[in-house]
């Protein structure tokens, strides 16, 4: 029995989305804790409510912008790394 040494690695471009989604997960966790603090411990003021809305809208725009830019990419593109 003989083993052939791999000569390269092939993977789809969509593979690089995994660390990005991991980052999004961490972002969601930290955003949740910040929002929880502001709702749970903050004195009820217009500024508090306004900040929550602004944060939500800002996050939404960044994500929509990312999606718009990412839609131009061919995520099925195969990356070939030769060893």
């Amino acid at each position: 029995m003989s083993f052939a040494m791999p000569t390269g690695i092939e993977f789809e471009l969509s593979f690089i989305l995994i660390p990005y989604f991991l980052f999004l997960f961490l972002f969601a966790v930290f955003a949740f804790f910040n929002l929880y603090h502001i709702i749970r411990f903050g004195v009820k003021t217009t500024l508090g409510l306004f900040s929550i809305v602004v944060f939500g809208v800002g996050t939404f725009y960044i994500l929509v912008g990312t999606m718009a830019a990412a839609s131009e990419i061919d995520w099925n593109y195969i990356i070939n790394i030769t060893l």
Partner: protein
Amino acid sequence: MNLLKIKSFPGQEKGEKAILVLRRHWFVFFKTILLFGLGLLIPIVIYNAFPELWGNIFQNEVIKAVSILLISAYYLGMWLFFFAHFVDYYLDIWIVSNKRIINTEQKGLFSRTISEQKLETIQDVTSEVKGIIPTFLDYGDVYIQSAGTLQRFVFKQVHHPNQIIKTILALVKEGQRFEAMNQLKTEIKIK
């Protein structure tokens, strides 16, 4: 001076009214806004500095994809950093009521200190304004020392520190007068 008008606050007692609700001066948070604005501009400045170079680099599908995700992560990170700083600023609050002083400080995401001091225990109130900008914008620290404790209350970087001192001292005096009246009433009843 009372930057916020609030009807109620967490842990409010019966018959208790918020006289002063204080936060750090807006200029303290303005520094964060400047830093955030600078952070937002960095990718735009880098992109505009070498437009031809980026044009060629972005022809490559992989580099383009990685750049989009990195820029997105950068802006989301910056946005979260800004919001976390705002929360820290927003949750540091000092309430002077007609009965006590409540000090609430957020230290990072998972540490929070709440302490209070009865007005009648206050012995000394001092203020400190240090630096050019604090002098011009009239903000500084207010130190409150109570009887029998080594620990001092500090209102950090608050607007109009001298007016705050006057208000607190007036409340303390009023409280002492009220207490003296009550004592007198009790003594008369006993006699």
